[in-house]
């Protein structure tokens, strides 16, 4: 297949505008990546190297004590592991329920005609305008009334489904052919069976995007766990980070090691599924459609 392309010898001049564009793009690249590179380099250095005057970007070696300290904690309790698992469990539960409930609701709204459908849809959309920060106090009081502090139930309940997920699944399912659904009905499939075996597998890209968005937002959630999880055992990773950074005599290297460990699951997701990661942001743009 390889053919030798004979390039015409027009030595193309690179215009100054092009150079300028590349310089700006490069500047932005340095700005966005430097702090991340800093986190990784610093996590492998003894603290005294991190705050040394010319910062050395390539660590002299791997200072593994930072990571040991990050996991053991300042008090050697190894609560980090438990907190890390809590974050995994909470994010996992929320992602699973959000995906299934959003798909079911989105399917119901997109493919069934019933009285009040538009009203229900608008009502659900309206909840997107209620910021969590405005309802955290009443939610907190409800949670305390039902003794949900320091429990997985308390950590996950307010997030089991969200309006954006419903909206996204509905938009995705609107163009799904009705004839296809009717055909499976005539073949004798039950409604739940149709949803599970026909609709759900056909939503894979939307599900992937929604999963990533949901998982990330839970992984990042600081405010609600701050209210609901007081016991060390039930804290999540963001709370561990807050505690670790607020403790006096913190060593910078260990702090960066904690940051690296907290970022690893997200970075793995990002590198394997960057397509869905990025399309999740762009999905907002299709809301008019």
């Amino acid at each position: 297949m390889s053919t030798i392309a004979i390039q015409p010898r027009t030595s193309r001049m690179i215009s100054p505008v092009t150079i300028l564009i590349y310089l700006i793009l490069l500047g932005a690249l340095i700005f966005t990546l430097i702090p991340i590179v800093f986190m990784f380099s610093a996590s492998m250095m003894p603290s005294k190297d991190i705050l040394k005057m010319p910062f050395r970007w390539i660590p002299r070696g791997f200072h593994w004590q930072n990571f040991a300290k990050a996991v053991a904690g300042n008090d050697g309790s190894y609560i980090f592991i438990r907190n890390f698992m809590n974050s995994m469990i909470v994010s996992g539960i929320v992602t699973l329920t959000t995906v299934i409930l959003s798909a079911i609701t989105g399917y119901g709204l997109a493919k069934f005609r019933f009285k009040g459908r538009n009203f229900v849809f608008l009502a659900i959309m309206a909840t997107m305008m209620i910021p969590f920060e405005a309802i955290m106090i009443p939610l907190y009081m409800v949670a305390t009334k039902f003794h949900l502090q320091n429990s997985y139930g308390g950590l996950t309940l307010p997030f089991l489904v969200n309006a954006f997920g419903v909206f996204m699944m509905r938009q995705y399912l609107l163009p799904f052919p009705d004839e296809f659904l009717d055909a499976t009905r005539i073949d004798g499939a039950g409604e739940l069976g149709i949803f599970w075996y026909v609709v759900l597998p056909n939503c894979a890209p939307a599900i992937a995007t929604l999963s990533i968005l949901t998982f990330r937002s839970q992984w990042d959630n600081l405010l609600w766990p701050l209210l609901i999880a007081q016991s060390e055992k039930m804290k999540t990773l963001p709370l561990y980070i807050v505690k670790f950074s607020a403790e006096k005599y913190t060593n910078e290297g260990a702090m960066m090691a904690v940051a690296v460990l907290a970022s690893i699951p997200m970075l793995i997701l990002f590198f394997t599924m960057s397509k869905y990661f990025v399309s999740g942001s762009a999905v907002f743009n299709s809301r008019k459609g």
Partner: protein
Amino acid sequence: MKKPYGGIERKLSRWGWIFITPSLLFFSIFSFYPILNAAYTSFFRKKILSLKPPTFIGLKNYSYLLQSSDFWNSIRATFVFTVGTFIPLVVFSLLLAVLILSVRKGQKYLQLAYYAPAVLSSVVAAVIWLSIFDPRGIGNQWVNFFMNTPGIDHKWLASSFMVQFSTILVYFWKYIGYFVVIFIAGLSAIPGSLYEAARIDGASNWQSFWRITFPLLKPTVVLVSVMSMLQCLKTFSTQYLFVQAGSPQAPINVITLNIFNTGIRDHHIGRSSAMSIILFLIMLFFTWFQFKTSKADDVTY
């Protein structure tokens, strides 16, 4: 599917209700009830953990807030943070998106690289920048290098101006790539034929940007502006961590931080509910504003 077979039609509409009921219940309990409850609580003097029944005080919480310098300081801090963050975000992400699309190579990689900070959680972002802003950290080193002011401490986390600037910088860094991606999606939706036609008519790059790209991109610009504004109004993690790390609270005491402290630390549930309702109304206004403007500007290619 209009009305020919009544039985199946009814059965299907029943299934529709079955499918939406779980979420409807959820939203009633975890969204509608709490916002109504917050509105209701805002009329009471109520203390958490107190056995005394809450006393009805009407609008006193609101009038208290309107006279409280602490509350107005929060409004100011939120306003400074929001305006200081979203304007540069919109301007620079649009600029970067246009520049990325104008180069021939590496568009995908540049997008991903700019997006990378958005992958990290906001707590991690705050912690990284706390290290950078350390008096002996690389923040000072770099600024001193470029401004040729060796040995100056710029007090990133200490002086009231700099700590506001620092929180803005962290947020700007974290979200720039996110908005670049949205702008690129918006820009890619504009059909190339328009540019070809303009080129044939002799338009320069500059002219086709202002005459074609910008007007057609207006809905995206409005969308991104409101989205980033709403995002900024809700900021919490960065400010919380900075305060925990010893920064002065007053300059960055944004409204969410104030709600949290008033309600949870000081136990003034009624007062913090009133603040929540004010935040809600502000955000509702901007969302309404967005729907209004984006409807009026709906473009067809």
